[in-house]
């Protein structure tokens, strides 16, 4: 998937991945896509929960070799 910005959260634990995601997304314009790289498995459920709570669009989560790539489109 194509992203406008990539955020590396590999090796980080709660609350850093979602904190950094929120911070990075603030810098983006509506419609732009953020890619979050993470290794903590919690991101699989945290990313959908975070997107639902903040009203941003979760485009998908890819999993490969114990790492996760999360794609979020900023909605507003």
């Amino acid at each position: 998937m194509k992203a406008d910005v990539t955020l590396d959260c590999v090796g980080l634990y709660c609350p850093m991945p979602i904190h950094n995601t929120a911070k990075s997304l603030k810098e983006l314009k509506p419609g732009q896509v953020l890619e979050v790289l993470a290794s903590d498995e919690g991101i699989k459920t945290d990313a959908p929960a975070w997107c639902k709570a903040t009203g941003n669009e979760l485009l998908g989560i890819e999993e490969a070799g114990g790492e996760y790539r999360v794609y979020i489109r900023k909605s507003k």
Partner: protein
Amino acid sequence: MAEKVTLIMFSGDMDKALAAFNVAIGATSMGMEVSMFFTFWGLNLLKRNEGPIKSRGIMRKMLNFMNRGGAKRLPLSRFHMFGLGKWMMGRLMRESKSPSPQELLILAHESGVKFMACTTSMGIMGISKEALISEVDSFAGVATYLAEAKEGRINLFV
């Protein structure tokens, strides 16, 4: 209007502080307004790490000597083992690139979490405003906490 989250920080334990700051920072990242009300042993989280804590009267002096506090000095609630357990936990956390209570406290405040210090506990325990860090946003009592908590659906006691 943003959803409100409040936490009563009663405990001065390091592990409980970590969990609470984690929730607080998570909540700000989800656009919620967070207030943390520090009372009793929880005030230890807000004490300055440097310098002596001055107070009047022999019992308060003793209390603040034995209960020095400061975010860098918090004990573990289990397996503290005179600091050995805490040292090991600190090492594991550093190896895991996990922030310390001190770092989380600063991060929480930078993220907009409001810190309230309980004036009643401060008075009884002989803790002056000068003994606390500058991140404290307000000094308040139970009514201030309840007025905030009334607006929140997530209100936690730590």
